């Protein structure tokens, strides 16, 4: 249709600008990034803010609430067959063999990171080292049609990594479940209220805690959104009864209540934002 009018009845969106070549990060090698990752704990991003939760008052909500900053010139590369775009001050550097993607320039967990553009999928999994050192934060969020469906937040402090999740499918804040696994077996289940977090600690209670892991996200057949973190190295969770159980995988799972729920079916984007300086993405799979 072609409105030939004084005032268009609706503005047309500007097309995306042409891609610019990536700038190499000054932070240098993977080794530096890794040493940062060996420091204790993670800082938590404030996931409940606009980036991962769409419960904003209208006067705080920008016209496109999920639009990251600095989109005048998208900086995107291909990795694992998927388009990855830098967000905020982040820079992307693919390895020569295509096996990994280094994401640098990460100083702000609400702004700096990478957006992974997906086809319509119900599952995404990545291997990498997105969990950072003490004092750093990770925010991972899934999006569908421009709306955040869910988010995972990992905040590191000395000796502990706090994991939490938010889900936007319910019409009101609901509890969610933390499912704990070790060697393939469920070793615990916890109910967490909105805003509550799951502390991951060193089973030896050491403060030099190197928690790192892979992450995944999927929407199950019932429509529940589920974040998974596969932990490498020593990791445990303190249960309410005082026991400490070793874990190598944690799932934060939405509980579909139906009452006023929104039926998410697929998602089409995953963002990872962090303040840890840099992280590396490796294998990525979708379904």
């Amino acid at each position, binding site marked *: *249709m*072609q*409105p*030939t*009018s*004084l*005032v*268009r*009845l*609706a*503005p*047309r*969106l*500007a*097309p*995306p600008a042409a891609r610019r070549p990536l700038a190499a990060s000054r932070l240098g090698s993977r080794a530096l990034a890794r040493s940062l990752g060996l420091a204790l704990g993670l800082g938590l991003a404030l996931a409940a803010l606009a980036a991962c939760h*769409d*419960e*904003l*008052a*209208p*006067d*705080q*909500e920008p*016209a*496109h*609430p999920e*639009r990251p900053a600095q*989109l005048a010139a*998208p900086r*995107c590369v291909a990795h694992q067959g998927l*388009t990855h775009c830098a967000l905020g001050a982040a820079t992307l550097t693919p390895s020569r063999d295509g096996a990994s993607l280094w994401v640098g320039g990460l100083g702000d967990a609400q702004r700096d990171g990478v*957006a992974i*553009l*997906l*086809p*319509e*999928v*119900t599952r995404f999994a990545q291997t990498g080292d997105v969990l950072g050192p003490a004092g750093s934060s990770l925010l991972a969020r899934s999006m569908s*049609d*421009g*709306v955040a469906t869910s988010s995972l937040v990992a905040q590191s402090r000395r000796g502990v990594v706090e994991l939490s999740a938010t889900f*936007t499918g319910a*019409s*009101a804040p609901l509890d969610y479940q933390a499912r704990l696994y070790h060697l393939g077996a469920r070793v615990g289940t916890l109910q967490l209220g909105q805003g509550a977090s799951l502390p991951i600690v060193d089973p030896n209670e050491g403060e030099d805690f190197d928690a790192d892991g892979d992450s995944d996200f999927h929407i199950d057949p*019932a*429509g529940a959104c589920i974040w998974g973190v596969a932990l490498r190295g020593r990791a445990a969770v303190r249960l309410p009864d005082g026991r400490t159980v070793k874990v190598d995988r944690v799932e934060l799972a939405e509980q*579909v*209540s*139906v*009452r*006023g*729920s*929104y*039926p998410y*079916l*697929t998602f*089409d*984007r995953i963002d990872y934002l962090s303040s840890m300086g840099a992280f590396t993405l490796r294998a990525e799979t*979708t379904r």
Partner: protein
Amino acid sequence: MSCAVSPLLAIDDLRDLRDLRGLSRRPSRAARALHVALALTLGLAACSEHRASRPTQSTTPEPGARERRAASQAVPAAGSRNAYGHALANLPLERWPEVRAGKALFSTSWVPRGHGDRERAERGPASLVREGLGPRFNATSCHGCHFKDGRGQPPRDPLRPARDRGQDEPTGAAPVLLRLGLIGPGGELLPEPTYGGQLQDRALRGLRPEGVLAWNLRLVVGQFADGTPFVLRAPVPRVDAPARGPLHPETRLSLRQPPSLIGLGLLEAVPAQALEALADPQDADGDGISGRVHWVRDPDTGLRVPGRFGWKASQPSLRLQNATALREDLGVTTSVFPDPPCAPGDADCLAVDAASGPELTDLELLQLTRYTRLLMPPAPRSGPLAELARGEAAFTALGCARCHHPRLRTGAGADLPELDEQELEPYSDLLLHDMGPQLADDRPDGDASGREWRTAPLWGLGLLHVVSGEVRLLHDGRAHSAQEAILWHGGEAQAARDAFLRASGADRAALLTFLDSL
């Protein structure tokens, strides 16, 4: 808040409206200068309306506020773009798979026959793709015009390069259709002989689209009693590049924007007797309002029933509304309408191989319809109590409630128990009303005249800009705010509109605050 009066507007008394007609594609230099001045003034007016109408919203209902809330409704997340897409709050868990199944059909992208595998491979392993689009169509999915169950298109993600797909790419422009028709010898509506009842402006490769929908803008300027000026715009549609020759010179054209989909199942469950009780076709009470039920024949039952859906309440049920939209807008057939939307004589369209059976099965139509029946209207939101109370009082005092009836109640014995005996706040009587010449499309539909329109429900009004990215009201989307929509009211609503014009700025602002809270 009022705007400085532009010297170019030369504001006159409202009874002497100026009708600036016929803006062409290439306006003169003087006209362009006037356009700029009017656009600037419009921008000021829109800005002031926006600030006046946006209440402070909290996510927690204040004690005592909005106590009348149906069990089917719950407070959605404030400011959520999902606000229109939540299932009824009293839905039992065992019905959740039905909602998801219907949502999947609603979100399905329809593609030409033979293209399904390729499209699935390109869109993703979980993509919802079905073959059967067209041959002629206006959209490729329900979702494409009713994004997030509202009345807009999906936004284009600025991170994604535009795909040159030709069929499915959101353009950023609001979706709108063009209905066509001629007046028959008995005053009945007949399809345009070459193009039928609706212009399908997209087509499968190898077919020419029927035409290009375009429009000029008609501007109307006026002022409130306190001197505050306003400018209204109405699209005057036309068809450019008609594929099979010009339209009949007496063709009636009517732009139609998609309605929002909230609370439709609840509206469907309001008993006919309740609507009859609200009707007063002879204006027996002398209040100037003569709303009437649009009686239509339900082809499923053969019975004469109230029409409820569509801008002129032409459709008696959601099932028929959905089946009609599938055929007319997507070219998808069902057992209700097993033939594609090819106008008589459209040889190219008729020559396209037809499917051996309906492209959407009866079960799937039931699932899709069930989904649209189970969408929850968002509950009113809290705000400054005094302002809301003043606005609600103005809503009644100015006469708005005579047609935008605040409350309805569903009947008992619905096939879906969630719809049974629910108190609703739709702010609509679902009746036809003469809205005057300014809103007339002169295209009758069934028993509805060219000046009559069904009272639009107002629930969810304040979240429309969040869900759909902008506010577009009235049948052709001409009104970009509730204030503009009020100013277009005429006919039976003339008195209410005039009262609004005479109201103080504070009362007008309070009314808009109240409407924004719905």
